[in-house]
């Protein structure tokens, strides 16, 4: 009962704080000229950018409350909060300094350090069909790579209005059965606070977007997802539920020959025809999930997001199915 009341309180706090911050930052950033162009609209509107700071601050304040309410988990919660904040900081650095496609993956693993240093990670990840593996030496370098991959995949999926926050909510929910089956109930309030801080941002970011989260938003989200999966030893289940994110990442890396920022690509993967997006037929254009979804016919932005959500939902179900196969 106490757990439920405390979770409800921190969740409501995260939601209200995030809503107020996103609304305030939207107007403030517009006045300050911190904006980005919505390239998938015909009139190319200027939209306030880096509003992802709002959900990050709301999540942090909510976790501070959880740290006070659950002193037995305070170290883990503080480490998760620091991990998410460091992820956001990497994104903010990229927003301000433009780190480029090679530098960003190199400094992303920094976000894993609070969890590693605090001793909250156990080098025994739960693998589908295999069970808990003992990886006492290999685990630590692998977890750094894991953070890089998850953070940058989340960043790459933030391509269309509302695509990243909505699909991340599905990914987060697909982790809940894993937390229950592995008896990590104490992490559920953290997940609830995270979703509550993302929801208001999604409301403003959905088509037609009124705000952009910037790299600060997507890297914070990616660092949190990697952190919660590592803390609960559900790394591989997160990988399965994020398959559509990796398809984009893998295809860009493979077809563009390494990590590339959108502006660093010679040929755009998609073209704009009025309000419709279609795959670029040029053979040198990289193949992304958006290009694949629009390969047969041009589609509106919200149609593509809806289909991407469907793919994420299928991945989430496959992740839960893998979990059940492991426990049966």
């Amino acid at each position: 009962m106490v757990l439920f009341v405390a979770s409800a309180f921190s969740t409501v706090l995260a939601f209200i704080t995030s809503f107020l911050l996103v609304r305030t930052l939207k107007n403030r950033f517009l006045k300050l000229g911190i904006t980005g162009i919505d390239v998938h609209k015909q009139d190319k509107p200027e939209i306030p950018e880096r509003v992802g700071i709002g959900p990050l601050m709301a999540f942090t304040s909510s976790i501070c409350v959880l740290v006070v309410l659950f002193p037995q988990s305070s170290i883990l919660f503080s480490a998760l909060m620091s991990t998410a904040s460091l992820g956001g900081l990497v994104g903010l650095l990229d927003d301000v300094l433009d780190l480029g496609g090679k530098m960003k993956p190199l400094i992303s693993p920094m976000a894993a350090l609070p969890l590693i240093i605090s001793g909250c990670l156990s080098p025994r990840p739960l693998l589908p069909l295999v069970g808990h593996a003992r990886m006492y030496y290999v685990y630590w370098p692998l977890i750094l790579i894991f953070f890089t991959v998850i953070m940058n995949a989340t960043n790459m999926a933030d391509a269309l209005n509302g695509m990243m926050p909505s699909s991340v909510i599905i990914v987060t929910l697909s982790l809940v059965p894993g937390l229950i089956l592995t008896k990590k109930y104490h992490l559920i309030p953290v997940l609830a606070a995270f979703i509550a801080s993302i929801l208001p941002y999604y409301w403003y970011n959905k088509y037609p977007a009124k705000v952009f989260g910037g790299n600060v938003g997507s890297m914070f989200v990616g660092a949190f997802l990697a952190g919660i999966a590592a803390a609960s030893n559900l790394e591989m289940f997160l990988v399965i539920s994020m398959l559509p994110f990796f398809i984009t990442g893998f295809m860009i890396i493979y077809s563009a020959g390494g990590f590339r920022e959108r502006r660093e690509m010679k040929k755009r993967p998609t073209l704009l025809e009025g309000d419709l997006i279609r795959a670029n037929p040029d053979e040198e254009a990289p193949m992304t999930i958006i290009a694949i979804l629009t390969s047969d016919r041009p589609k509106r932005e919200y149609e593509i997001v809806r289909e991407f959500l469907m793919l994420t939902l299928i991945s989430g179900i496959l992740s839960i199915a893998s979990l059940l196969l492991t426990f049966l």
Partner: protein
Amino acid sequence: MDRGLALGIFLVFSGWGLVLLALILIKIMILPYTSFHGRGLLEMVYAALRVAVSLIAFGFSLVAWYYVTRAAFRRILLSRQQPSK
């Protein structure tokens, strides 16, 4: 359902298959050899070979997955560009 979405769904299921393949390879080829304690040189060489075979099998599947997807993607794009008869 159009072919683009169908290809997306195929990619998710085949991606899941790839992850499971990697885990099956880990389970049957690598995990029995996680400890070299008390094993002879021949067994260590045998274990290293199994790891190499697993990596090659997984790498080959990943590259095949990419090229099958790329071929299907190009085919859809080309069929769209050709005028219908």
